[in-house]
């Protein structure tokens, strides 16, 4: 790994606590996993809860995710991003899988289409926003346009595909794709994640 030259103003990634823990976890260190659990379990569960909603199922999915972190810790590659982003990507995917599987089962079992699956969206965005724990994220979400914010929160916190999001918002597909991107870019810049 290249060492940044002195005076280089680009931020030198310091080896974060989570990355170190994950490295130790990948070598079977249960104590490290215990610490990692303390660090991420609340965020894992929180995100799953937003997407899956049902508390018992959410807990089940969170449990699966955390065990998956243990199982595949060696696949984490620090060059590809932070440990938190890796874990949250995994978390979101699992949560969405659970919801989509449940939807598919509902379609199979009861012959109901996606059209009948219309969550009360006002309640959704209100709840999401009310429950944001971090002022910074809240502030930054408010800097988005309504459509950007609704698109981003429906897709991420509720696990909708961009097509479902477009249906819910009554907006063209292409528009939602674009809003997801420019909304997230604006968030990135507001939160200071920008390159």
């Amino acid at each position: 790994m290249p060492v940044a030259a002195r005076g280089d103003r680009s931020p030198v990634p310091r080896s974060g606590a989570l990355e170190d823990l994950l490295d130790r976890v990948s070598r079977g260190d249960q104590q490290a996993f215990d610490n990692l659990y303390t660090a991420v379990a609340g965020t894992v569960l929180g995100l799953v809860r937003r997407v899956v909603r049902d508390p018992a199922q959410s807990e089940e999915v969170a449990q699966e995710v955390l065990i998956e972190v243990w199982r595949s810790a060696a696949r984490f590659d620090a060059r590809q991003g932070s440990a938190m982003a890796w874990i949250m990507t995994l978390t979101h995917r699992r949560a969405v899988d659970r919801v989509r599987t449940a939807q598919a089962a509902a379609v199979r079992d009861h012959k109901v289409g996606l059209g009948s699956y219309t969550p009360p969206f006002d309640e959704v965005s209100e709840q999401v926003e009310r429950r944001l724990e971090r002022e910074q994220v809240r502030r930054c979400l408010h800097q988005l346009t309504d459509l950007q914010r609704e698109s981003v929160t429906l897709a991420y916190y509720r696990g909708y595909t961009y097509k479902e999001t477009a249906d819910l918002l009554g907006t063209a597909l292409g528009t939602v794709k674009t809003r997801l991107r420019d909304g997230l870019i604006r968030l990135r810049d507001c939160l200071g994640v920008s390159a």
Partner: protein
Amino acid sequence: MNTVDPHTLTGAYALGALPEHEAAQFARHLARCPACDLEVRELQETAARLALAVAEVPPAGLRARVLAALPEVRQLPPVPHRATVVPLRPRARPRLPYLAAAACLAAAVAAGGLAVRAQHEADQQRDRSTRAEQQTAALSALMAAPDATFHTTALKGGGSGTVVVSEQQGRTAFVYHGLPKLPEARVYQLWYSREGGMVPAGLVETGRAGGAMLLTGTPRGAVGVGVTAEPRGGSSRPTSPPLALVPV
């Protein structure tokens, strides 16, 4: 998707909003588009911030269930061909070196069951969560400070603690884990070690083995942070040898 500039899908992809087959297709595109790839990484870091904002307190039994499952789970080896997938371009790292650390602490606060709440046991629940949220925000800000440093140590008698200090923020946090229960009438107390003596810096909430808390007072001028076991209510100076003394 063929009629659309695939680049516009970075947002949907980072948010997990593409159906499976489109996600797979876009992942292949990423392999050929370094700019898209970098953007996706940054947007995934951004999405992780959205996750942090909704952290919850996990139920007590979850940790035990997860830990109990581990011995049965076979861990994957590292990807064998990693050497061949090293990107040809300079190392691109998302610009959020502090995110993981902030996440770590913010989640630890949640995981610790809002251990940061003040000691007035009679406080109403709502006040508690409001205060806990404020503390969470302060802790996150502390972790996000570019100058935040981490000092982890084992405590004599069991458990471990990490002291996080930011001079810029003028704050110190103590993230602790596995603290053994003390005898009935004693509490864990934190101290700043300054020239001329130990200054009280707060009490760890009684009966809590893991969590995170902000220290009272600023780290300015402190050369270390100490932990002792004190009579309930705390002491104005340490009455027992330190369980840990962390240089900062």
